[in-house]
């Protein structure tokens, strides 16, 4: 059985400008110890998906619905607040993008770290402190026994993010939701934090959903990648398949948009024209159609369903929500069958 199984998750916000469908029918599953990269640009619904899983969408204005969200066999959406609290921070924990705003500036690192241990594991303050110091040591904080008595503002950005990771992992959760965990960090610090996350995942066998806009980060971190656009999963594939042969025009466009250390600097980047659509006024057909270089006639009229495809080299299953997927299969590299 999968660790997490999400069927047809929908999140909408009822605003003055109309109903915003931030997440619109997202389904996926996640195995123990697996890392799933959830990629998309601002407003694609990737963060909202994560928040919805933990029941963190404020209602009103938000409305969360799904056929089911099974975690370790229990449907998270049917749990009451007390039951959810026993899972949050314990079986599932979350790391946020900005460690400065997601820690309480008035509490010492010790208070923030030991809260989960006292609450979920019933440890005494003394035991919890000991465990928290060990946790800080695990994430590479120098002299943790001194740092634990400091306040968040006394730490650098990279150290705060490591404290967040330590906090997320203290109860040895089965699932870690990491929302842009390194976006606010400099590249050299990002490299430290990513290495650390990998090492800790290896040690504890934690599954990770890594939400990011950075395709470089997911390339090195995740087993599978889901690409989101305007609230929908437009493509899902294993990391190597996705980069080798993207099968959705949006994924292709994203990959072409990134300047890399190996691209030809004299060539223009293959940018995607236009801007993401207004989620309160989506076009009737495919949401990507107005920006798409591969569009055909039906794309502006019908919404494409996710097609399941098989990669013959590995037998791996991948999906793409595009009517024109056959044209994207270049003859030289294809062999992917429907």
């Amino acid at each position, binding site marked *: 059985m999968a660790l997490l199984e999400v069927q047809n998750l929908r999140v909408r916000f009822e605003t003055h400008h109309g109903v915003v469908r931030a997440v619109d029918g997202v389904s996926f599953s996640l195995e123990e110890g697996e890392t799933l990269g959830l990629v998309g*640009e*601002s407003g694609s619904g990737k963060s909202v998906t994560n928040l919805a899983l933990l029941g963190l969408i404020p209602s009103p204005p938000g409305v969360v619905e799904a056929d089911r969200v099974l975690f370790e066999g229990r449907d998270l959406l049917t749990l009451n607040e007390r039951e959810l609290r026993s899972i949050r921070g314990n079986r599932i924990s979350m790391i946020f993008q900005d460690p400065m705003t997601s820690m309480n500036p008035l509490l010492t690192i010790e208070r923030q770290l030991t809260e989960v241990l006292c609450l979920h594991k019933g440890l005494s303050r003394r035991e919890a402190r000991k465990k928290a110091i060990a946790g800080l040591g695990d994430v590479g904080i*120098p002299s943790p026994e001194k740092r634990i008595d400091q306040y968040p503002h006394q730490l*650098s*950005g*990279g*150290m705060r993010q490591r404290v967040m990771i330590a906090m997320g992992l203290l109860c040895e959760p089965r699932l870690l939701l990491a929302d842009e965990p390194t976006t606010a960090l*400099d*590249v*050299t*610090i*990002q*490299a*430290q934090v*990513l*290495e650390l996350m990998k090492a800790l995942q290896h040690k504890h066998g934690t599954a990770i959903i890594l939400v990011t*806009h*950075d*395709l*470089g*980060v997911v*390339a*090195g971190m995740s087993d599978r990648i889901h690409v989101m656009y305007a609230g929908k999963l437009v493509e899902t594939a294993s*990391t*190597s398949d996705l*980069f080798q042969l993207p099968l959705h025009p949006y994924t292709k*466009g*994203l*990959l*072409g*948009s*990134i*300047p*890399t*250390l*190996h*691209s030809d*600097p004299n060539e*223009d*980047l*293959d*940018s*995607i*024209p236009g*801007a*993401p659509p207004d989620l309160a006024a989506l076009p009737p057909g495919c949401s990507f159609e107005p920006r798409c270089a591969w569009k055909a006639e039906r794309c502006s009229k019908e919404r494409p369903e996710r097609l399941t495809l098989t990669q013959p080299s590995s037998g791996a299953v991948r999906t793409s929500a595009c009517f024109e997927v056959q044209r994207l299969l270049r003859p030289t590299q294809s062999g992917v069958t429907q």
Partner: protein
Amino acid sequence: MTDTTPLASSHSRGESSGPPLLEVTDLKKHFQVQSKGLFGGQEKWLHAVDGVHFELHKGEALGLVGESGCGKSTAARTIVGLYPATSGSVRFDGRELTTLSPSQWRPMRRRIQMIFQDPYASLDPRQTVASILGEPLKIHGIGRPARRKIHAMALLEAVGLNPRHIHRYPHEFSGGQRQRIGIARALALEPELIVCDEPVSALDVSIQAQVLNLLGELKERFGLSYLFIAHDLAVVRHLCTRIAVMYLGRIVEIADRDELFANPTHPYTRALLSAIPEPDPERERTRQRIVLQGDVPSPIDPPSGCPFHPRCPKYAATPDARCTSLIPPLEPASPGSRHEFACHLERGPA
């Protein structure tokens, strides 16, 4: 462009080997963060920019890269006169800028313009696009109002926006479109040099590519020179022909683009290059990453000697007394070379 537009590629193209357009020599900018108290005590200074020099030739795009707090934005702002320099010299087309009075600066502003990072904060929300783009011309007394409007429309077209949207307000545009308005404003006075301070880092990837392509195209079309500030080396590599890497207020390495990426010499440049995640799973799996230990030290109390030595993997492997006592000078790799770096250890034994 139609012939109603006052925009024309008036400047000559390409690089020249003549005198540099911009010459920055030993530029320093220190901020006082703590003054002497009533009863004495220690003054504290933040050494944001601590001796930067480089030359920028006409038609060149020079990238200034580094991590947060390395002083790259402060250097840019000091160069354009938004901060008074603590010491050092900035010469533009042979003219010293650091000693100019505000009224002497005004004619120079026509020639040096700036593009800012945040497209939301850098446009006045209560002005229409026509007024935002017309204002530089108004200030400099160029053209009559009707003429200015035509100019503004031509500018919008040049940056890929619809000229009919001239009477809209900034909030009616998306982030990428606002950045295009910021670029149009910088172009309004037909400057020779544009200082771009992280112009694409607030934008989504697909929009970032559009704006990078636009900046490249405008540079060719109007014969512009760029001083391009960014933290992303891949972005800088795409647009700039010469790249300077900064660390704690100093340039640690500067070279032409291809040379820098082929032969990165300073240990910091190497670590920075190896830390960039690449959208290529095969490469990510096999590459050797140099993970630096620790954080960037505070520029209030920088380390003695080479500012990078506490994190330097090369120093850790082969400690050398020079690294902790002497600040390494930025010198050519070989006599006359355009590749310069500041490292005792890479320079060889004393």
